């Protein structure tokens, strides 16, 4: 749902999104050590694979974004990871837009990275239920951030979209709830089973 296809947004929004995404990519790549590429790629792949599974919600089903979790695990490196994921989706499965790639990267990665970085600093010393709550909160807010970015991109593109935005926004609420619960459990699981996954960036000094 967060993937805006080609043909919906206006040119200035597409260009603005692409510029922001390029900035984010530059930032993410600078923090990505060359020797760290295999590790980042493997983790990015897992998020990609996990988001392919459909979660039943009532009569319909949704796919997870996992952007909050990505931000927590990968930090700013989530931006190139999301970019690569979207590009692979376009090629392997044939969906997603090309001109809207920049906007989609911003919509999905930016809220996740910002909340992930906040969540990481809170996660130090937290355990069990606390860690789950922090992870869940970050995930829910990331999805809401994504909904906000998608709405903003649509609103800036054309005033005609404005009345539809409320309903577009509403479709994100179940996703936010499901993401919060799943991410909360994942973070609690990782704290218990393999905290090194969450401490990925500590080795290299302060996360961004």
């Amino acid at each position, binding site marked *: 749902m967060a993937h805006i296809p080609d043909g919906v947004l206006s040119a200035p929004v597409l260009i603005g999104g692409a510029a922001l995404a390029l900035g984010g990519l530059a930032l993410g790549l600078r923090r990505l050590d060359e020797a760290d590429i295999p590790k980042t790629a*493997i983790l990015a792949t897992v998020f990609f694979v996990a988001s392919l599974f459909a979660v039943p919600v009532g009569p319909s089903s949704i796919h997870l974004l996992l952007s909050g979790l990505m931000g927590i695990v990968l930090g700013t490196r989530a931006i190139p990871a999301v970019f690569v994921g979207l590009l692979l989706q*376009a090629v392997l499965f*044939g969906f997603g837009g090309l001109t809207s790639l920049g906007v989609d990267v911003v919509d999905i990665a930016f809220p996740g990275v910002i909340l992930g970085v906040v969540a990481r600093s809170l996660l130090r010393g937290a355990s069990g239920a606390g860690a789950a709550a922090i992870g869940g909160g970050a995930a829910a807010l990331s999805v809401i951030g994504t909904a906000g970015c998608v709405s903003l991109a649509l609103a800036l593109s054309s005033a005609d979209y404005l009345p539809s935005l409320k309903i577009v926004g509403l479709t994100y609420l179940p996703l936010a709830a499901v993401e919060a619960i799943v991410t909360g459990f994942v973070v609690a699981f990782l704290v218990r089973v393999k905290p090194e996954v969450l401490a990925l960036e500590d080795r290299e000094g302060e996360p961004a």
Partner: protein
Amino acid sequence: MSDAAFETPVALRLDRLDTRLRLVAVLACVIAILSVRSPWVLAGLLPVALATTGLCGLGARAVLARLAHVEGFLLVLALLLPLTVPGETWATLGPLTLSEPGVERASMVLLRVNLCALAVLTLLGGLEPVRLGHALARLGMPRKLVHLLLFSARWVALFRAEAARLDDALRARAFRPRTSLHTLRTLAHFTGQLLVRAFERAERVDEAMRCRAFSGRFAMVADERPGGYDAIFAAGLAFGLALPILVDRLI
């Protein structure tokens, strides 16, 4: 992808093109489609685009599945635009009035999105990620990003297999996804387990690659050179894109 391509005779062999040309071509198609302003010209392009998917050997079912996915996203916009955009009444359905600018707007969005999706599906469908990575590197994408893409592409299949094994294990224990906390917790542990396994594998891969003196640089082996087939394709495409734009500007 190559299996299917060899079995059926295909009129347009996109896999014979230089991958860089395919990337430039798909971008040119999308930009051309977005720059057309008349819905009639776009509607005229739709059968052309569908015929091209046939020429490239794409099955009708694959095309429909792809378009259905796009429609899911657009349904909300396409249904709401005619109802919400103010303007002269185009038609009334009981208590609902469809406005003329709203209908026009909705049909424009629908046509553009579907045409772009067809262009991407036709020109990039079945492109091997390794070829994509090498072509992007030769088009000037930063090396780190290319490496990230190549590594990810390599591991997608591997982790889908790993996920399938975990999924088998779940189903062997009679797990059925439903709308319940149990499903969500199971999915979370599934994702967490996948991450833990991936992390451990990543450490092993990292050590193995360091043992083999990996310094963060891949040798890019790409021997693609544009040939006559590419020139003919490029000329045909340029004509095919210039014509609708010209018609659009003249009418």
